[in-house]
């Protein structure tokens, strides 16, 4: 699965995207796995209320299932316009 990071999530983790092999059933489980990796991940995911997630390029909730998903993205609230 491709995992993408944008804005300050990207800056904290230090990369824009990476390939992640995971058995996580939901976004929340994926977040737990990532958090456990290193401090920079723990920092990026310290406050889920400040984060948004997209699953296969659609906005989703943290309890969204990951079955068959190719791409998950984490980012702060959007500031378009």
């Amino acid at each position, binding site marked *: 699965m491709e995992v993408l990071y944008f804005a300050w999530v990207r800056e904290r983790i230090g990369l824009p995207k990476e390939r992640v092999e995971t058995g996580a059933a939901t976004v929340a489980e994926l977040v737990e796995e990532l958090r456990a990796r290193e401090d920079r991940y723990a920092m990026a995911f310290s406050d889920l209320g400040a984060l948004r997630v997209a699953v296969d390029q659609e906005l989703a909730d943290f309890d969204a299932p990951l079955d068959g998903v190719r791409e998950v993205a984490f980012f702060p609230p*959007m*500031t378009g316009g």
Partner: protein
Amino acid sequence: MGAPRIRIVVQQAPFDFGAEADRFAAGRTDLGAVVTFTGVVRDADGDLQRMEIEHYPGMTEKALEAIAQEAATRWSLGEVLVIHRHGPLQAGERIMMVATAARHRKAAFEAADFLMDYLKSRAPFWKKEHGADGAGWVAARDEDEAALRRW
């Protein structure tokens, strides 16, 4: 009036606002009202060196298309245009524009207002301001999220 003509553009290069405004819905005799909104890089404190707009290629286009389709479902629109830039921008530069054309002014105004509310909080763009004292990500405003509840 059937499905509107929808055009979505996401690009780094500047766009020609005058030319886009001029040709939008030009010559249509069934559309009495055209509204445009343009967002411009502000430099409130006079110390902005540049703004960087990051986006999510692929999702951005889909999100803008979905927002425009949603507007077309709620209002009877003849044409819809959304242009949004990314990359580095200077103060005073145009970031984006939306345009709506409808039979009457109420639909054109409401649809443009709606597009802006959704685009602010639901299209994957993030702004970073680079100033004399360093750089910072522009925070989403609670009122932008609240604005969505109007619709």
